[in-house]
């Protein structure tokens, strides 16, 4: 559907910024190195061949417990398009354990009618990535949500506060290691009148 997007990324970023890319169910995806998060997204927005004007969604995935999957370098469960299938795609495949969190970005080009999905791996030890507010201002509250529920820090975000949970809440409830039954009540009935 939008192979042109991956081709443009492969042509522009030749220094291993694009770790993997592929296509699944008619949608293209690419895995971006963390330090190239802003250049890649800014390029997608500005390049006349991609023209990703519209930010669709930003969220996060916690791959807790999937790190030691045998033989599974590709944590998507999708068929990665290897160098043989797509010579223009970058050939570098990440090695070692995949990072625990994936920040997932969906963007769409209204004028060219194509879309792409970008992943950015974020490690558990340093769960941070650059904010995209300077690229698409609409990411502001989405990044706050990802910070609130997953604890991913977006460096440079203008207002990185919790957005869904209350300020007194401790922890990040959509992390897979957050206890399912754990409640953090703000108020309860008191012994006494009622």
């Amino acid at each position, binding site marked *: 559907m939008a192979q042109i997007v991956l081709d443009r990324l492969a042509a522009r970023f030749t220094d291993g910024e694009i770790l993997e890319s592929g296509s699944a169910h008619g949608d293209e995806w690419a895995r971006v190195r963390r330090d190239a998060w802003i250049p890649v997204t800014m390029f997608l927005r500005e390049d006349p061949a991609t023209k990703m004007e519209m930010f669709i969604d930003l969220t996060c995935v916690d791959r807790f417990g999937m790190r030691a999957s045998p033989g599974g370098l590709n944590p998507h469960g999708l068929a990665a398009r290897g160098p043989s299938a797509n010579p223009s795609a970058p050939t570098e495949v990440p090695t070692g354990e995949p990072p625990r969190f994936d920040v997932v970005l969906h963007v769409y080009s209204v004028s060219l009618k194509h879309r792409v999905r970008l992943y950015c791996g974020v490690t558990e030890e340093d769960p941070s990535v650059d904010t995209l507010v300077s690229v698409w201002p609409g990411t502001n509250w989405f990044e706050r949500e990802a910070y609130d529920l997953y604890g991913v820090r977006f460096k440079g975000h203008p207002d990185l506060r919790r957005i869904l949970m*209350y300020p007194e809440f401790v922890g990040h409830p959509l992390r897979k290691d957050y206890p399912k039954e*754990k*409640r953090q*009540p*703000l108020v*309860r*009935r008191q*012994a*006494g009148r009622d």
Partner: protein
Amino acid sequence: MGFEFHTSSLKAAVNWARKFSLFQYPFVTACCGMEFMSVAAPKYDIARFGAEFPRFSPRQADLLIIVGTITERQGPALRRIYDQMCEPKWVVAFGVCASTGGFYQNYSTMPGADQVVPVDVYIPGCPPRPEQVLDGLMLLMDRIQRGEGHSQIAIEAERGYDVPLAAIRPIDKMGTLGGSPNPPATGPAGQNPSGSHAIGPTGGKP
């Protein structure tokens, strides 16, 4: 024989009047609100039972209808609204979410509105049929007539009258429901050891 004078007669008359002039405050948070509109609309017509006007100020209402899921974050607001209502006051939990948390079992949903306010009638259903709501309303009216609403019992206890202790749901110090079946849960005024209702991030601890 001579004259017999029952102090309960006036109370019965007052309660009779109360049960037919409920002024509701709908605390609508979720999809059950649609069913609440259905009950209030002419087809089912909750006005037949005297609960006609929704008052959108808690100070003018004496029946708090909690319609929909209550999250932990809404707890302080719900408690404040309850505290602002004039006594005697009653609370109906409309739907399973308000009654027990429903099928939500997670970090954000309160497991029943009775964690923060005393509920007199629980109406199950997801959402409840309007007939169920009217049935619940009539249950509440019976309860009002008998003087067994939580708030009625509390008022009686403050005045030093005997109260039907079986109707009191005890609360232990952690703020969760439970404890022995017949504790002196309510006492005369000014003997509340744990202070008044706390609103704040204290986690229910005094």
